[in-house]
């Protein structure tokens, strides 16, 4: 395996929250390599640090110590603007609670990442509509998030995550707030994106959902363990 193929490389990552008495040691030395195009599931009990880890991977947060190499760059050496650019261009986020902006309609929500990219071109705005069409929401462009069902909201969020054609998708319990059927639709969408060549890291507490990934890791007490597949 050449190092080029490793998109994410974590070495002895530690993360603490808070200070003094309430200082919380959440990640206690995580090591992980994710290959380009890999689809990996992270499982673990509530509070085990899954979201904390995903936020680090998404450059939303920084580890307290340890080395994080993202596509060849040492993240610790990047400044806030550079991290923002990475989030904008290379990473697509999908959240458990969708995180749409309720004041904006569906189309504007999907266009938000464009505002922070290099420039807004008509091809890009056209792409927003195509993406919404591909998640069967092209007839709801003018609706605001509160008017949509959970599954519909998550599909908007997925379309938004894909606007800038990221190489990596980070999903934090994407089906957590959905029933089995709509959850399944969302998972099929994610599998399709994986088939298109994207690297996907997905958090789930559901072992069955985790089985849709190529590989599963489990988090326990701030540490990470590989899970044997049957």
């Amino acid at each position, binding site marked *: 395996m050449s190092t080029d193929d490793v998109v994410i490389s974590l070495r002895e990552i530690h993360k603490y929250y808070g200070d003094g008495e309430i200082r919380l040691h959440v990640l206690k030395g995580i090591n992980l390599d994710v290959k380009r195009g890999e689809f990996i599931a992270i499982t673990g009990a509530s509070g085990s640090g899954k979201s904390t880890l995903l936020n680090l991977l998404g450059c939303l947060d920084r580890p307290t110590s340890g080395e994080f190499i993202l596509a060849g760059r040492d993240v610790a050496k990047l400044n806030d*603007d550079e991290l*923002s650019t990475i989030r*904008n261009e290379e990473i697509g986020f999908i959240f458990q609670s969708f995180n749409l902006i309720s*004041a904006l309609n569906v189309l504007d929500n999907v266009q*938000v990442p464009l505002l*922070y990219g290099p420039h*807004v*071109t008509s091809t890009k705005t056209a792409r927003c509509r195509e993406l919404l069409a591909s998640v069967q929401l092209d007839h709801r462009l003018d609706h605001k998030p509160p008017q949509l069902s959970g599954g519909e909201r998550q599909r908007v969020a997925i379309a938004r995550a894909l606007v800038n054609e990221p190489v990596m998708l980070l999903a934090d319990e994407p089906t957590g707030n959905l029933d089995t059927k709509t959850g399944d639709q969302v998972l099929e969408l994610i599998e399709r994106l994986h088939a298109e060549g994207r690297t996907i890291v997905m958090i789930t507490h559901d072992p069955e959902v985790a089985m849709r990934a190529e590989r599963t890791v489990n988090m326990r007490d701030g540490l990470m363990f590989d899970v044997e597949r049957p």
Partner: protein
Amino acid sequence: MIRSKQIELIRLGVTNLLGYPLRTFLTTLGVVFGVGSVIAMLALGAGAEQEILEEIGRLGIQNVIVNSVKPPETNKGNEQRSWISQYGITFTDFKQIKSTVPGLKSVIPVHMSRKQAWFGSKKVETTIYAVQPEYMSLFDLRTAMGRDLTGVDGAELARVCVLRAGLLKSLGIFGDPIGLTIQLGEDQAYEIIGILEDDKFRGYAREALAIDSSNSEIYVPYQTILGRHGTRSISRSSGTFEATDIELSQIVIEVTDLDNVLIVARMLERIFAINHEDRDYDIVVPLEALAQRRKTQQVFNMALVAIASISLLVGGIGIANIMLATVTERTKEIGIRRALGAKRHHILAQFLTETTTISTLGGVLGILLGLGLVQVLIFFTGWTAKITFNSIALSLSISMAVGIVSGIFPARRAAYLDPISALRHE
């Protein structure tokens, strides 16, 4: 088509503001009233300045006017005092000015006397101005009815007069006045040849020309008075008796070149200082007065605007306050935007765009309010007000600046929120 992100940012900002129309409107109010009063103050200030300009401009900035004034009572011991008080500008002064001061276009003598005017049994206290035709044209005293005084009237020592329209009523003349005869002073009959419109001199100009406010001037040919009556004047009113002998009540000096006005004024001061021991004269230089008055007015205007700006300040604080609340309320949204790649300056720009949009909107409404306010003020007070393009441009830029300044603190707070805690905010 490439739609610029700036436009998109503004569009989204406006979308956000329109989401809460009432709140947005209330937030603008401070700026609306602030800008409204600034506009009104600027308009009144500009109006007052224009009034000064018109008032003093009427005197002609190329003219210098010298008036005879009664000197302060001097205690010259037992020196026997004549029963006629003698003071003021003399014919000698007049001749000396004409012959020694260069660069003058004209030197116009004026003699004034208080006299009673009679028409039938009606009697009115008036001031008789013995003037040359040049005086009338210099100060734009054109007759609205009848004809102007001419050089021929003077040469013939004609007993003709031009009077203020206001006098007609007090004299009980209601029909066509032209050709009627009135009695001036000691039973001298004068024919009315022209009527001047009512008072056109205001404030400073009236004072400078020694015109009282009763609007009762009667203009007669200079030579007629000098030739027929001389310079002595006796006025009786309610038991008091006053006799004066003032050779010239006033001299109007017209300077050919504007650049020389101040030099001429200094020369006149020297001539009079030498010729007159008492300060029985007063030299009026409209050019100087104009500069002085404008300066005073401008300081006053600035004070007015500064006071009006206080409400702008309050408006700005209002915007900052609401924006701080909005930032807290929209913490989650800020987190989402950061997660999607917004840099700090994007968040900063977003909130600044919103505050600037609010304050500019307030500015536009404020300008409309100010325009209305000015109309109302003009209607009820009759003041002069002048709305200038500059005042509108100034108000608009001030209101935009208020938006930026009041937005900076909340916007910075939003931009420096930690993305993760913002995202976790409920």
